[in-house]
């Protein structure tokens, strides 16, 4: 079981790819977030970093499954 994490905007530049497939499993959004912060410390410098699960903003306690569509949402700047 593994995850595919979609990357956008500045997170794509920081991680250097438009998708990220971690080797580890994570039970919650919070666990994934910790992993990302440790693997890519520059993510900690962002104004905010939301994680979307199945196209909804997800709080850290939300459980992850490998079929979820996961995406990193750095500060938005549309409009």
């Amino acid at each position, binding site marked *: 079981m593994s995850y595919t994490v979609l990357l*956008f905007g*500045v997170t794509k530049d920081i991680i250097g790819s438009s998708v990220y497939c971690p080797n580890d499993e994570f039970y919650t959004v919070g666990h994934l977030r910790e992993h990302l912060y440790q693997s890519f410390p520059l993510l900690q*410098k962002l*104004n905010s970093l939301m994680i979307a699960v199945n*196209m909804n903003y997800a709080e850290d306690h939300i459980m992850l499954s490998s079929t979820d569509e996961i995406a990193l*949402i*750095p500060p*938005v*700047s*549309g409009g």
Partner: protein
Amino acid sequence: MGDNKLMNTLIQLVESIEVANVASLVNKPEYGGINVFVGTVRNHTKGKKVEKLFFECYAPMALLEMEKIAERAKEEFDIKEVAIHHVVGEKQPGEVVVVIAVAAFHRKAAFAACEFVIDTLKETVPIWKKEYFEDGSVWVAAHP
């Protein structure tokens, strides 16, 4: 995007926007007032000249979030229709990047709802703007 099937769709991500099209999407003879917000690319940011912009989006979620905003606007204000068109891709200063049109029986609600939609769009819709200057580029709002 922009094909015939989507011509009448209220919520769209498009390569370019015709202001009048968005306004006419929400216009029906029953309504009395339409408020339209037109967001354009500014040619300067904090005194620096912007040469071009690039809009990236997480398309399916962006459309979903725009739908949610339109629904919330219809719940919270006395309005009838909301259209939101936002561009993706490269844009020049002065070009239109977002158009929001809100139709209502009475104009006061149209103004308030339209302002709510653009304010909320800027907070929640996963679209990212990259500004290009003479000496580099930056993802807007990413860093303090």
